């Protein structure tokens, strides 16, 4: 533990040192196609394509033990269509950041990787992804069409300096915001959910729970706060890191410090009121229990978060309790919501044009998509009707060999089967939801913090010191918020905002 920082850094450095040597040695041969994985060309293979093996890296919640079997089925499709075999590499989300950083900085053979998850800009700045524009134009028209049918803004959103480094999957590309409540308690106390229009209508609801259910905390934090992120993302576009935001009601292009706005102060006051009334747990600031676990254990009544047309069903399934979602803020989308999950071609991909062909299949080929989404028919799922599927006899979510439930990640969700229990009209609702969402005026703007990273390091520490305590109501905002603002100024927030404003203005001028 004592040496963890240092030895991690040392490990990284030595790996890097070794990898640069390896790069130098192997660069001469790296353009040769890899032929190892394609035994015997299939008859209908395109004659002009060399057989290749493509490695595809993606995050999973838990490791899927039938991955190899699914891979074999996928290869039947990909060999026929693009004369390539696919190697699937799954990495659990907990290990994702560390492992992929090492894989990207080393010389690991990868042809397609999930990008985003908060590190897209950094990885592009470090030169780890290839620019995709030429490949999209030649080999990725299917993916482009699928996205452009929704709105051309989504493909453009990931552009940095005019170049595309990632293609977003088609999923809930927008979010609305509100509160999730346990249905059993809502029914028990006859709470009228239609009467809940704003955050201030909730005091009476929490009061009922507090008085009648002594073991249940009326409201718990979703990630690290009660009414802060992710709920607050309905009131502003964080423009990347949240140091300098664009407020939702603001029609101009003025970047402001969210912490200094009256809206933020009001959220904190509300939270404090709830804390003092006992609606928030006294240990909210130190507890590290995730909301799903507290809900599962029946210890919590509600939490605020971002929502989509299928979040209610999905979250109910996760916590094993029926939840009711009440929307309080309208659907919005911005660059951040688009670039959280994308597909990119890593710098050391050996056949980028083939990677793009494979990616294109993920937006156009229904069989390929559903193999990735749900596994093998008959083994991992059975068809109930043309588009609705369910588990086969004796198989369920916990014993299935392949059930990643990542149909929102593997390309085009519109082509994914609807699982039994999901809304049969999911696709249509999702499409309407995305199309009706309010797009941030800065959709497509990606901020580059390179020139102010010294300030960002200092600001991150200030946020760590104050945000959690304030956003759980543990401390009095009247006293602590001014101090928080003062510390942010001392750490250089104004300089960071000025830089962001400059970049935003330049972007707006270039994208009129």
């Amino acid at each position, binding site marked *: 533990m004592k040496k963890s920082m240092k030895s991690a850094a040392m490990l990284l450095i030595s790996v890097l040192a070794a990898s640069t040597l390896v790069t130098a040695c192997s660069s001469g041969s790296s353009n040769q196609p890899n032929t190892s994985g394609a035994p015997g060309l299939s008859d209908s293979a395109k004659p002009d394509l060399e057989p290749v093996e493509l490695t595809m890296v993606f995050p999973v919640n838990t490791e899927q033990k039938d991955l190899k079997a699914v891979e074999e089925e996928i290869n039947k499709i990909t060999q026929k269509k693009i004369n390539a075999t696919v190697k699937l590499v799954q990495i659990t989300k907990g290990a994702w950041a560390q492992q992929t950083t090492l894989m990207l900085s080393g010389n690991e053979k990868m042809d397609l990787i999930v990008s985003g998850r908060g590190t897209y800009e*950094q990885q592009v700045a470090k030169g780890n992804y290839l620019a995709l524009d030429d490949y999209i134009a030649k080999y990725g028209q299917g993916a482009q069409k699928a996205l452009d049918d929704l709105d051309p803004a989504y493909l453009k959103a990931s552009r940095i300096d005019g170049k595309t480094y990632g293609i977003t999957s088609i999923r809930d590309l927008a979010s609305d915001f509100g509160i999730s409540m346990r249905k059993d308690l809502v029914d028990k106390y006859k709470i009228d959910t239609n009467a809940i229009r704003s955050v201030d209508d909730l005091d009476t609801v929490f009061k009922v729970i507090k008085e009648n259910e002594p073991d249940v905390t009326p409201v718990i934090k979703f990630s690290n706060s009660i009414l802060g992120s992710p709920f607050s993302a309905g009131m502003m576009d964080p423009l990347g890191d949240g140091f300098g935001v664009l407020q939702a009601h603001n029609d101009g292009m003025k970047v402001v410090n969210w912490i200094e706005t009256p809206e933020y102060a009001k959220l904190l006051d509300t939270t404090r009121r709830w804390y003092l009334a006992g609606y928030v747990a006294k240990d909210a600031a130190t507890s590290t229990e995730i909301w799903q676990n507290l809900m599962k254990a029946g210890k919590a009544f509600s939490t605020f978060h971002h929502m989509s047309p299928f979040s209610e069903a999905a979250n109910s399934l996760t916590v094993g309790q029926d939840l009711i979602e009440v929307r309080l803020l309208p659907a919005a989308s911005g660059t951040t919501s688009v670039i959280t999950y994308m597909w990119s071609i890593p710098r050391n991909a050996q056949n980028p044009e083939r990677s793009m062909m494979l990616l294109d299949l993920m937006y156009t080929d229904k069989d390929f998509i559903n193999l990735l989404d749900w596994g093998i028919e008959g083994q991992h799922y059975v068809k109930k009707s043309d588009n609705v599927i369910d588990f086969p006899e004796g198989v369920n979510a916990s014993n299935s060999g392949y059930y990643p439930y990542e149909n929102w990640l593997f390309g085009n969700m519109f082509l994914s089967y609807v699982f039994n229990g999901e809304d049969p009209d999911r696709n249509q609702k999702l499409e309407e939801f995305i199309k009706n969402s309010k797009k941030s005026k800065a959709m497509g703007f990606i901020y580059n913090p390179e020139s102010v990273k010294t300030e960002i390091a200092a600001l991150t520490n200030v946020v760590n010191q104050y945000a959690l305590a304030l956003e759980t109501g543990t401390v009095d905002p009247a006293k602590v918020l001014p101090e928080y603002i003062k510390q942010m100024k001392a750490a250089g927030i104004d300089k960071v905002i000025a830089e962001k404003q400059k970049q935003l203005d330049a972007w707006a001028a270039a994208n009129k």
Partner: protein
Amino acid sequence: MKASKMSVLRLEMRKAKKYRMLVLMTLPGLLYFLVNNYLPMFGIVIAFKDVNFATGIWGSEWVGFKNFEYLFKTKDAYIITRNTLLYNLSFIVLNTAIAISLAILLNEIRKRILSRTYQTLILLPHLISMVIVGYLVLGFLDVEKGFMNKTLLPFFGLEPISWYSETKYWPWILTIVHAWKGVGQLCIIYLASIIGIDQEYYEAAKIDGANRWQQIQMITIPLIAPVITIMTLLAIGRIFYSDFGLFFQVPLNTGVLMPVTNTIDTYVYRALVNMGDIGMSSAAGLYQALVGFVLVLASNAVVRKFNKDNALF
């Protein structure tokens, strides 16, 4: 001149021949250090570069000391340096004192089984992960369910304390936790060197009529002084590194407590865990290593001045 040089060389050759077995035995260790500690030192250049993987480390742009700026630019720099230094200083003094006392006491226990039991019990905390220690502390300090607030303070008729939002208690809490966890290992080292002391010294002292306390004062402490010096020098070399687990896990990463729990390591971790900027993290590592190196040289020089035999080199 030339002749003397030749003879020195010859002398060295003869020495090398004489000790070749010993030299051979150090080889695995030397190799280990070469591969594990010296080769990666080429990575130091990363601290002065804006690393771009597309162009490789050597091709990346030189940025001078820009990566170091964040360590000194804000007023946090003072707080984290103060915390790191003062905590470590008090840890060195306290842990050494406690460990030596314990070692002497353990040595006085004649019943072998008791002595072994105590040793094991004292060492046990050293083997517990800091993450778990953090939760053990929470067991004591939890606002609603903790032992302190639920049992101990009410017993004395005191009001419960919100431990995780009051900075004033934490310098004490951290010092106690660190001593509890770290003393065992140190104690064993001292105990080993005490056991190594020739019994004849004590017999002679007894004949001269020295009591137990005088024996400890006049024989035990002076004879383990070299070990104390070495252990202290080693600790001083790491004075700019803080126990990350102690300062991050034990206060449960609580923001309010940061004025008294933020050290260089936790600051760097918090600042860079999201940014993932290896240039800036290498800069912090290099800064800590350099200061530690200078401090070891300086304190060794001081020791050398007083007692040449006790110095490391």
